[in-house]
């Protein structure tokens, strides 16, 4: 009798568990089903390449004759390469110039637009326009602007300044690239700042105006503290983006003159697609991945500390 009761109890428990499972399945099935495509896409095109890149960094890659394990050789050769120091130095300089020339521009523009009483909508559109220009057209335009007989040198000549070799002088080439990129990119970042400014309670401004605060005091005491968290976020994001810069370098200078604009990422592209050395390119990529992961960790920590995070 006891055994029979125990057996019935077990069946009941099993039934209950089955019911719970079935309910759980019903509750989550469609959610999971809709996630599968996203997981498949991310798995195939994001996570698999990351894992494969790490694996490849330990191999001599030969897609036809088969790969050969080489241990840390790709890493040691990459670090010993004469291009490594040049590329790291150029990348750091490029990142530094990006901050110096470009970081402050979007916030200044955003604050200026936010202070406009009229035409705010038009101005937002105008500053975003460079982002809409296709990259090919953009690079062609900058090649024209930087031509020895182009508009920029014409402009300088009106002030009695001799022509500048924008892209063929090693001291000017990175500057020219950052200038072009700042022009192209500042609009999108300005819109982020503007969104932050819009989020600042209006009554603060009204109270300040009632107290007789002028434009600059309003900006200093309300706007800038209100978007402080964005400065940190966008600074780290700019660091991450510029550390991977290579596109404009490829289009405008080809890494020259004399490797003056050869960046770390451009070096990876060269290793993979010019020298067909996919193993070393992967090793370089893994090292960059580690550095960018650390930068991302810093970003998350800073976001966590931010009062508006």
């Amino acid at each position: 009798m006891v055994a029979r009761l125990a057996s019935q109890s077990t069946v009941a428990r099993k039934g209950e568990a089955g019911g719970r499972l079935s309910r759980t399945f019903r509750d989550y099935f469609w959610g999971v089903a809709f996630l599968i495509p996203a997981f498949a896409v991310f798995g195939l095109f994001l996570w698999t390449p990351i894992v494969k890149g790490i694996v490849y960094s330990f191999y001599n890659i030969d897609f036809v004759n088969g790969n050969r394990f080489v241990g840390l050789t790709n890493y040691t050769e990459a670090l010993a390469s004469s291009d490594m120091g040049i590329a790291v130095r150029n990348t750091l300089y490029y990142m530094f110039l990006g901050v110096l020339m470009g970081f402050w521009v979007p916030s200044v523009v955003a604050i200026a637009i936010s202070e406009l009483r009229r035409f705010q909508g038009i101005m937002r559109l105008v500053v975003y326009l460079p982002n809409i220009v296709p990259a090919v057209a953009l690079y062609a335009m900058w090649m024209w602007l930087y031509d020895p007989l182009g508009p920029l040198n014409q402009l300088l000549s009106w002030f009695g300044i001799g022509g500048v070799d924008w892209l063929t002088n090693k001291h000017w080439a990175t500057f020219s690239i950052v200038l072009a990129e700042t022009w192209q990119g500042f609009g999108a970042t300005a819109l982020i700042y503007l969104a932050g400014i819009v989020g600042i309670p209006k009554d603060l401004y009204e109270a300040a105006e009632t107290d007789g605060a002028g434009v600059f005091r309003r900006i200093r005491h309300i706007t800038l503290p209100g978007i402080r968290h964005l400065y940190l976020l966008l600074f780290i994001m700019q660091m991450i983006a510029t550390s991977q810069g290579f596109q404009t370098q490829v289009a405008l200078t080809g890494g020259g003159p004399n490797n003056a604009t050869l960046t770390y990422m451009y070096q990876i592209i060269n290793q993979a697609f010019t020298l067909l050395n996919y193993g070393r390119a992967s090793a370089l990529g893994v090292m960059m991945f580690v550095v960018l992961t650390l930068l991302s960790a810093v970003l998350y920590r800073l976001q966590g500390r931010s009062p508006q995070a």
Partner: protein
Amino acid sequence: MRNKKKGLAFSLITLMMVATACGGNNNGNAGASASASGSASASASGASSPAASSPAASTEAPKVTMTIQYPKPDNTEAIALEDSKIKRYQEKYPNVTIKKNDWQYAPSEIGIKMAAHQAQALFNTFATEGKTLSEHQWAADLTSLMANYEHANDFNQKLLEPMTIGGKLYALPFDGYIMNVMINKKLFQDKNVPLPTPDWTWDDFYNAAKATADPAKGIAGFAIMAKGNEGGWNWTNFLYQAGGEAEQVADGKVTSAFNSDAGVKAMEFLKKLRWEANALPQNWALNYNETYNLFKQGRAAMVIGQKIEDSVNQAGMKKDDLMVLPMPSMEKGGAHVGVMGGNYRVINPQESPEVQQAAFDYLTLDYFNQSGLDELKRILDERKANNQVYFWDSTSVYFNIDSDYGRQMKDIIAQYPDTVFSVDEQTVSTMTGHPEATYNAQDYYAAITTAMQAILSDKNADPKTELDKAAKKFDTEVLSKVKAE
């Protein structure tokens, strides 16, 4: 419930679409199913199928689908030529379905293309690539196909050399070249500078470049390629004229040789043109297209290489304003050496033997045949009707110029004196071709371009130091891994 089923079906379809999107493009198929899918995709991808009603359609020959390299959409002249060839080929081989793909060979892309099995069954490459293609097994060994080919011994043997590796042939030439100098005579006349003659030297070249340059107007006396691998390719002409070599082989090892005295002389000559004569473009870091664009805009008096057809037929320059001379010799009486290279067609070894045979038949369709002569005549008639020019350089043809076939070609050419732009006999007789570097030529060119840029961007840069730097890097990172044959 019905909605849930729909949702499930939608999810599955989405997943299948994602999965199928990742599938490779296998061109090397044969058989009925391949043919069916080939024709289905023909209208979408620009494939050309043999007419089903073709009287020559054979039921015995296996059906084969082959992808060939097709010209880019903006190259209308080449498209017309290729379409004509496809039509003639399919009349002869109705069992072959041809798919067109306009990917062009690039050293930076071939690895990816082969790994993805997406390179055409037949694609074009250039003379420097023989070693790379054979080492990676990215080019089919043509030995067995050539064994059954009646004209195997009628080729211009000089042009076969770069693609003959270890006794095996990996590609067939369709044209070749010995680098020369293309001149805009109008810019010489504008400055009252006498035109140079085929026996010119570096001094003559320097004086001509200096005299025709007008930096205030953005006109360069001489535009040399100095960006990308093209820079090294252009500079190597001066290296060879000075008697230098790019590489040397000793004790089974390959090492750099371009940092020799000859290399230093060649680099010093370039330095003089840039800093002393101010004859180069102010934005001197030009790649292949940018250099010729400058020439076509009338902003460069001299460039290395020739783009006669492009300059006249596309850019509207006048035939009479153009001139082609051999490369200058370093000293009076010296050799007028130019880099000798060419364009080749490669058969993809990943394809089935049937597709490889079809590709070989397509490749050789007009070779040594009446159809080749007819095609030349048709092109010349067409160019004549359109007031366009046809460039003819007898040193650079795939066949032996002194053969019967060569003589027939020359006879046709002679019938179109106003349409043909040919390099005159005196120029041809002075031109000496020197093959490109054997080992990792593209990497060598890249190393040289960096040294060139150091010289061109810094007045105080020392040619010997920069060449030594380039040689050390090239030896350590590239040649140290190469086994000499």
